[in-house]
């Protein structure tokens, strides 16, 4: 049966058919995309090639299964929490989104620059055609994606001040941060960590940038990428720049010998037999002092940009954060070094394994306490110079809680070491996660600074009590666990 259609009806039917076609097209495209991903190279279409390239790039940039799982898990949680926040305006979901996203961004910012440099200087990947161009495009996309996400989350927060100009400012800051990180990773492996401090003051940097002409911002952004691309494409590495995050013990040892061994900060005489072996370097008082000097010289560098940009109140808050991060970083560094070198003292110690607990603890505090006291003294004096708002009681509390955190880090680290048959990867990952949790709890309780949410002034007992419980739970287990500990093998 046929029916004659009027003009308006004809238009509607046409629209309907067009929509159906569009839906069908999208359906076909999606089907093809997933087929390509699932079947891989056997049925390569345009999407298949991109999916395959993307998969290879993801595996190259995160060359550890555990790391890939963590990145994907964080991404899923961050996206889900963001979606809930956007629809339901849930404060808790917003906090989870922010925390997860910061963790993800931090993880990527730590690993990607070093891995990019390692890949670009590797003779294996150098022959993979346009690998460098692909990495450059990825970095550009990553900077844009991170900036968009950051602006969106910022907008969701109580600040509600999103503007295209703000996106430009965030994108410029993120781009400069990533570009500088790659360059730092090439020049001084691992030194790009210092750049993270710039990200702590992102809010202030963006506020400053928002005063600029948008055209100027866009020009600087474009110029920065052009300059970086020019350097990146023409850069001829002299030798393979290994990524210290993903190498074995043997390679670590080699780097430690050549890098640390030739530096004035690490050259000196040995004070004790076991101390030197546990440190993997001379442990004389002179060289200890020089090593401490190197940390004390580099740490204040983190203060300079903040001091120039921030106002007094914000800077004071940042001082506490930097001090806390510095104290935790020193503790984790000492633990990582001890774990790396523990096998060296087995054949040279007078006692058996059970005596290692007290030995390690003694050496740990010997290394950690001077740094922590120094950091605290600096902060106390800065507070006093600024006509302190915090009293001595507050600083005592700060000091105690930092020592508590360090003690907990010590016990957690060795507990994981014993449980995983000396997997240094898990030891570092778990402790790093624990310190991050502590940091976020400190923000949440308003102990260090406050997040831009209403959730603050939770009792500090939420930090201290779990710490104490965990410490009591672990202490005896870790002590007795040393009787059955396997040392990280030289064959790994």
């Amino acid at each position, binding site marked *: 049966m046929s029916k004659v259609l009027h003009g308006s009806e004809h238009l509607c039917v046409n629209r309907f058919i067009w929509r159906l076609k569009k839906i069908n097209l999208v359906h076909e495209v999606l089907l093809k995309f997933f087929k390509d991903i699932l079947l891989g190279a056997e049925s390569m279409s345009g999407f298949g090639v991109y999916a395959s390239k993307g998969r290879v790039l993801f595996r190259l940039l995160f060359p550890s299964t555990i790391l890939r799982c963590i990145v994907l898990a964080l991404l899923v949680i961050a996206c889900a929490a963001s979606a809930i926040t956007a629809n339901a305006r849930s404060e808790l979901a917003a906090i989870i989104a922010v925390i997860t996203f910061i963790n993800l961004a931090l993880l990527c910012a730590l690993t990607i620059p070093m891995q990019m440099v390692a890949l670009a200087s590797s003779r294996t990947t150098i022959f993979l055609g346009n690998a460098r161009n692909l990495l450059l495009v990825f970095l550009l996309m990553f900077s844009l994606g991170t900036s968009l996400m950051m602006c969106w989350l910022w907008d969701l927060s109580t600040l509600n001040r999103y503007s295209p100009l703000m996106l430009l400012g965030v994108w410029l800051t993120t781009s400069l941060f990533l570009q500088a990180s790659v360059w730092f990773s090439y020049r001084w492996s691992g030194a790009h960590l210092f750049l993270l401090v710039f990200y702590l003051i992102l809010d202030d940097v963006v506020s400053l940038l928002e005063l600029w002409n948008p055209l100027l911002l866009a020009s600087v952004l474009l110029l920065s990428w052009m300059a970086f691309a020019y350097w990146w494409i023409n850069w001829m590495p002299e030798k393979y720049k290994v990524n210290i995050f993903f190498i074995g013990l043997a390679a670590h040892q080699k780097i430690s010998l050549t890098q640390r061994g030739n530096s004035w900060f690490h050259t000196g005489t040995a004070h004790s037999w076991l101390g030197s072996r546990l*440190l993997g370097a001379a442990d004389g008082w002179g060289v200890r002092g020089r090593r401490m000097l190197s940390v004390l010289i580099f740490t204040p560098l983190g203060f300079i940009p903040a001091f120039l940009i921030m106002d007094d109140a914000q800077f004071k808050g940042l001082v506490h954060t930097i001090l806390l991060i510095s104290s935790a970083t020193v503790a984790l560094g000492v633990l990582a070094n001890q774990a790396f070198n523990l096998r060296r003292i087995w054949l040279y110690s007078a006692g058996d394994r059970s005596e290692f607990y007290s030995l390690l603890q003694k050496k740990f505090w010997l290394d950690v306490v001077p740094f922590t006291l120094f950091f605290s003294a600096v902060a106390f004096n800065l507070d006093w110079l600024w006509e302190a708002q915090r009293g001595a009681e507050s600083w005592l509390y700060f000091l105690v809680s930092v020592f508590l955190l360090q003690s907990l880090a010590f016990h957690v680290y060795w507990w994981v070491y014993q449980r995983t048959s000396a997997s240094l990867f898990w030891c570092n990952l778990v402790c790093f996660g624990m310190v991050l949790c502590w940091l976020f709890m400190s923000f949440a309780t308003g102990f260090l600074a406050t997040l831009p949410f209403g959730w603050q002034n939770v009792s500090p007992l939420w930090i201290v009590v779990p710490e104490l419980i965990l410490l009591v739970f672990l202490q005896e287990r870790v002590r007795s666990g040393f009787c059955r500990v396997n040392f990280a093998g030289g064959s790994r």
Partner: protein
Amino acid sequence: MQTFISLNGLQRKLGGVSILNGITAVVTPGQVIALLGKNGAGKTTLLETMLGFGFPSAGEAKLWNINATNIDSDIKQRLGFVPQQDELLAGLNGRDHLELFKSFRKNWNQALADRLIAEWLIPMDVSVGKMSIGQRQKLSILLAMAHEPALLILDEPVASLDPIARRQFLQQLIEIAADENRAVIFSTHIVSDVERVANQVWMLRDGSLAYQGGLDELKESFVRVTLSFSQPVSLKINWPNLIRQKNSGHQTQLTFDHWKEEMVQQLEQEFDAQVQVEYLGLEDIFLELNQ
């Protein structure tokens, strides 16, 4: 006789993977043992387990009749160990290392140390970070030898040494071998070195000892027999201790373990063929056992 090391059904798993599968062996004074095996056969794990770096999953590893994971200072003084990757200390030079090790050791042969420094041309005033890999390896070996340990264990000690240094090192091992109160275990891939200094061979395959015994006995027990027939051959031979058979035209090549002279006659009688026997070198034996 005193036993330095006794391994009894030793098993070791790492990350759920079985690396050592029930190794039973003893080390007595006067033995110079060459530990051979392909890459990933478990040589380093075996050496580290017998030194107590890790606990066995099953079985036991004992040093002077004490569990290797519980050895005391006295036993540690009798050991010398050179790991695959040297464990020298960053920021110290050779002389600092010597002083530091000397302070820990109860026994120290300064004359030996001085002689080796001179012969091996170790730059003692240079920071180890600036030394070449070979120089660091020489220093590591020197530090493990200077206290004249009763048991010296070396994990691929010559891998980074040039031919001259390798020869000097082997000469030093021969001197230790002459002392019947001491023992040496060294892992290596350079089979010619083994023939020069070892009197015992442990051949590790898939985490088990495929052979352990004297070097001469090993070389006498492995042969390649060529049977020549009057017409092209395609038969499949099934004899005890036959490891490999390869047919080619009128000939078939057989590789035997536990070879005995009287087997020549038995082969001639059974196959009515001309029999030619060739004794294998250690490298060929290694290849035959690991193919």
